[in-house]
């Protein structure tokens, strides 16, 4: 799966968890750009993404991302 496909899948997870059809993530998107993306929802997003890709993030990884691109990189490294 290439990073474009991963981004699209992650976008779908965001739409589902945050219940907002208008979300359009890019590699540069940060939590500040998405209204509902607070620390509480972040936990649910992480768990939903783990389920979607059948992976587990480490605590280091969860705390390291500053923007969506970095999250995509972590997923890409784990599944490819």
């Amino acid at each position: 799966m290439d990073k474009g496909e991963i981004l699209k899948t992650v976008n779908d997870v965001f739409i589902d968890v945050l219940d907002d059809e208008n979300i359009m993530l890019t590699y540069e998107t940060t939590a500040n750009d998405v209204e509902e993306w607070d620390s509480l929802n972040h936990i649910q997003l992480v768990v939903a993404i783990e389920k979607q890709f059948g992976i587990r993030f480490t605590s280091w990884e969860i705390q390291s991302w500053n923007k969506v691109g970095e999250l995509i990189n972590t997923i890409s490294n784990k599944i490819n």
Partner: protein
Amino acid sequence: MKIFSELKKNLKNDFSPLRSVKIALLGDTSTQLFTQALRGTGFDMDFDFLIWEADFNQVELQVFDPKSALYAFAPEVVVIFHSSHQLLAKYNKLNPAEYDSLAQNRLTLIGDLHNALNNSLNAKIIYYNYTEINDAVFGNGASKIASSFLFQLRKLNYELMHYAMGQDNFYICDISSIQNQLGKATFFQPPLYINAEMVLSIDVLPWVAAQTADLIGSMYGRLKKCLILDLDNTLWGGVIGDDGIGNIQLGNLGIGKAFTAFQHWIKKLKNRGVILAICSKNTEAIAMESFEKHPDMVLSRDDIAIFKINWDNKTDNIRQIQAELNIGFDAMVFLDDNPFERAMVRECIPNITVPELPEDPANYLEYLYTLNLFETISLTNEDTERTKQYQSAAKRNTDQQQYADEDAFLQSLNMVSVIEPFNSFNIPRVAQLSQRSNQFNLRTVRYTETDIKAIADSIDSFSFSFTLADKFGDNGLICAIILKKESIDTLFIDNWFMSCRVLKRGMEHFTLNTIAAFTKAKGFRYLKGQYLQTPKNEIVKHHYRDLGFEQHDGHWILDTQTCIPKKNYVKASS
């Protein structure tokens, strides 16, 4: 069970028509997502849970400060969630010499919290027990070393049950069992705890919420009272009409074991007061033969309150069972191995609970264990007598058909009622009746045992409890009335509730005569009643009118100087 994101979607629904319950939630870990799960679960049970959530780790701060936001909120239910992980963190910091006092110290704290809550609130307390953590410091030795964390944790869980037994408003929510059921790896996800202080995984939130909501539901009368069972491939393996009594599978061999174990479970439910009914498509004489003659049947004829064994459709049969027992469909569970019958019953009777029994009977029990169908918060002696009472009710119905007129029938029953004020013997049953009566309940005020005790002790309140026995059997305590002094000449009927088992027997008249005579004897003149409508108490809408009360400013007034005693055939016994 719904997953967390589905529960969360419930939060956008309209809660306004639902029964509201004010709940305070206090935890020593992060509980925000759990709050959402609990409110979402409540919606599916027709509850509007208004949840006030304490800030992170403020349990003691809120409870021990009488001026705190907790008390300003005035909750009806207080949920306290002390986690095993925070308990372990505390243990870790102890001096090794203090390890073996961990459980006792925590129990003392819990008792202090409970007392403080009781001093300022009239609330029910739900306390979560401790999920097991084996820190593997002593290996298997932990079980015989009192200072090990595992030893202290298990001791604490055991002592908590002891503590709860002696308290009438303190209930344990057994989340340790949920962890046993689902496994620790599902229940607890360490990164969530490290990163977000959450000890419940996203996947387990609906389970803990459901267990908590079940407990709250049972506090408000949401109880399953009746279990309706199919026969072939449900109570035994095979089809008795085809295979014959000698060839059905039951007993100690092979798949028969699954059905025997299943019947034992059902018998235990019956012993604790769940009413059993049979609803089966069969030839009655053939099916009954197994109850009478099969050596491996655990359930006997006497365990079953109602048999509906015929070739009519099950929906009609279940409606008849409902009419005979006079309880709501929402208090019934229907178990049948046949997916077609289940679908039909579920479709036609909206509020009945119809579990999707697994295909393999070997899995019946483990599956049913996970559903927590028969939640209960208290048990009285009446519970264990219930099947007998419903059986005598059935006999009474048959007998009634032989009498030409109702008066002659009622007279023939030799009804006797014991009237007593609330006392230590009847308080648990009165409280239970107040929680359970939904239909014959004029104001639907729910009383706890503590409330009932307070009424018994109050000089401005007068309490009456009524039992009813007749030649067919003893119905036990079936009615209670609470009168409060409102003015120099008026007593207000704070509530009047009665079990629907004894409707149309003249008890309405007998109880009215009793309180009217009491009113006069104590030097009062008027009895003042009120009807507060709920979705379930339609049958008493005209109760006061029918008894001769006159309407006055939304209340009903009876002048006991001029009213004439109402006819009935119940004798008072002292």
